[in-house]
């Protein structure tokens, strides 16, 4: 008989067993926002992100026997997502028919969803402009720089976890972050 651990425990414990992967619905409920967000902002393509997010959980479920519990569930899922993003990016380079405009993650739409807690209309406008600026800069980064940036600054993963997910060394992760932050800093400096 398969024992199902409550979702809250999966999210909080960090100690996971293979049996926990049996409850795919709970897994999706807990981790889907994170995986979807990472894929969406790594690819800047919403439709592809939805498809890849589904593929990620499907792959996790199908290969659940390979999960040994030597890392957190989040790290394992993000590793699968990162590999799917990488594969997708490689294949996309040869697809000239891709209609980016219709499926792209809209920076304007994203910026409109900013928390309305900003103190004034001016503050909201500044925040909106900065969100769009960061989003535009992200699109100019390399695939790896963008993924690493999203993991660190959107998902707030620490550097060793990013290294574990991407298979990069810690100095390589830091180098990607230096370049990504440098690009944003340059753009920010130009707009001020």
């Amino acid at each position: 008989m398969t024992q199902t651990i409550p979702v809250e425990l999966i999210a909080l414990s960090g100690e996971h067993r293979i049996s926990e992967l049996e409850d795919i619905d709970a897994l999706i409920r807990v981790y889907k926002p994170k995986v979807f967000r990472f894929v969406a902002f790594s690819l800047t393509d919403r439709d592809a992100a939805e498809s890849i997010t589904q593929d990620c959980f499907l792959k996790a479920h199908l290969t659940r026997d390979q999960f040994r519990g030597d890392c957190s569930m989040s790290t394992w899922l993000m590793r699968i997502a990162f590999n799917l993003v990488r594969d997708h990016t490689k294949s996309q380079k040869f697809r000239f028919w891709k209609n980016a405009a219709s499926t792209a993650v809209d920076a304007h739409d994203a910026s409109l969803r900013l928390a309305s807690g900003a103190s004034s209309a001016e503050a909201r406008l500044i925040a909106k402009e900065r969100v769009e600026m960061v989003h535009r800069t992200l699109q100019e980064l390399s695939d790896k720089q963008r993924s690493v940036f999203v993991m660190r600054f959107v998902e707030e993963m620490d550097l060793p976890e990013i290294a574990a997910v991407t298979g990069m060394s810690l100095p390589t992760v830091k180098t990607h972050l230096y370049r990504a932050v440098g690009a944003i800093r340059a753009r920010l400096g130009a707009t001020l």
Partner: protein
Amino acid sequence: MSAHLTHEELTDKLLGSSSLTVNAHLLGCPGCASELDQMKSSIAAFRGAAHAWSEGVLAADRTVPVVRTLPKWSWGTALAAAILFAAGFTFYLREHPTAKQDSSAQVAASVTKSAASQSQIEKDNELLSQVNSELAEAVPAPMQPLRLLESTPSSIFTTK
């Protein structure tokens, strides 16, 4: 104190791994502190917008079944292919006997046409034979009267 923080020092501070020296510099340098604040607020705004956006998108999609074994376009393509196949097969079943009848009629018409063509060919051949026989004569038609004279024994052109 150095002029300003290097890019690496500023990024390290953003990453949360700064040294005491960097922290001390930030306390005494409004320029670096301001730039760091702007970077932090920009990234935080982006993070907030990204989270809000993804939550909104996923909330809108909650009515859709969570696990799909194939991407959306694959289902669409498969459905379109199935509809096309069904329509084509139905059309074929409906139209096949008619097509067969049409084929028989075409054969009959072809045979009739072939017989008509044969008689036409015979007529043409006859005409050609007539033309050939006329062309084969040694004396052209305009000179026929001369030929008649030549054949007459009392012709004035007869040489002795």
